[in-house]
């Protein structure tokens, strides 16, 4: 049952995101209006925690649970795709107040209209895959 650990990580993730209200459409709107520090605090602390963790991992060449040295792959170099992809994503994120993780979490929480968001997100991913070679990266 090696997958249990992933389920537990997901469970914790789902609970924290819901209790911190990072999945809340209201909180995303409030964030983009700069009317609360809350969301910036969450992202900032997560980033900071990750930063320290990853720097320790690299400095001490720490090993993962299977004994292999942890290597975190760099993101592909580029510019246009990050700016423009980011822009499209941001428009959607603000419009429906959710990004991929929260989409699943909100469905679990009982917000069934989010299923429409999910289906449409899958469609968006599909269309990207089909058009990819014709898009500037």
């Amino acid at each position: 049952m090696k997958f249990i650990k992933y389920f537990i990580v997901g469970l914790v993730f789902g609970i924290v995101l819901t209790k911190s209200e990072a999945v809340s459409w209201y909180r995303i709107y409030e964030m983009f209006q700069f009317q609360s520090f809350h969301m910036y605090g969450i992202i900032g602390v997560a980033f900071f925690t990750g930063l320290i963790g990853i720097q320790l991992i690299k400095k001490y060449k720490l090993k993962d649970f299977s004994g292999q040295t942890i290597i975190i792959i760099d993101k592909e170099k580029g510019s246009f795709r990050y700016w423009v992809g980011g822009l499209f994503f941001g428009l959607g994120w603000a419009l429906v107040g959710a990004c991929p993780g929260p989409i699943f979490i909100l469905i679990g929480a009982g917000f069934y209209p989010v299923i429409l968001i999910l289906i449409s997100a899958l469609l968006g991913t599909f269309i990207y895959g089909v058009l990819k070679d014709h898009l500037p990266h």
Partner: protein
Amino acid sequence: MEFIYQTWTWYYSGFIIGLVMLSLIYFGKTFGMSSNLRTLCSMAGAEQFADFFKFDYKSQFWNLIVILGAMFGGFIAVHYLGDASNVDLNPKTITELSHLGFDTPNGKLAPDAMFANTVFQSPKMILILIVGGFLIGFGSRYAGGCTSGHAIQGLSNLQLPSLKAVIGFFIGGLIMTHFIFPLIF
């Protein structure tokens, strides 16, 4: 134990999210929710339409288990850990939202105007959910990641591409809330 039912603070929540990411790294994986969208497309047969979906999606099974866990997490948090005092927004936000036609939180995570089952009867809201979802699905794959992969893991790993993506996310979000919302709501 009262604090469990209240809104969890940003410093506590952000720290746990950081630990979630580090746990996945410790398990030899990465923190990235949007790749699940690609995996689901591949499982549904999208590889017949584009090479992008031709990959060993069984290797991503662990990530599908993570989101399954996350769905359960959402269920548990809402049904067993909720409180009417939650989603305590800035009063200015509440006022602005009511001018746009959005109901006050009263402890709800999302407005009825967009997320109650009644929206299935509103063509406008259905269109908004579809457009929003499409932008998220298309944009996250184009940018190669979403808030988990770029804003949290990417920035923690000091990746310049992630900084560009995150700035893009923000500009998009600001354009939507400041310029487009007043036009559509």
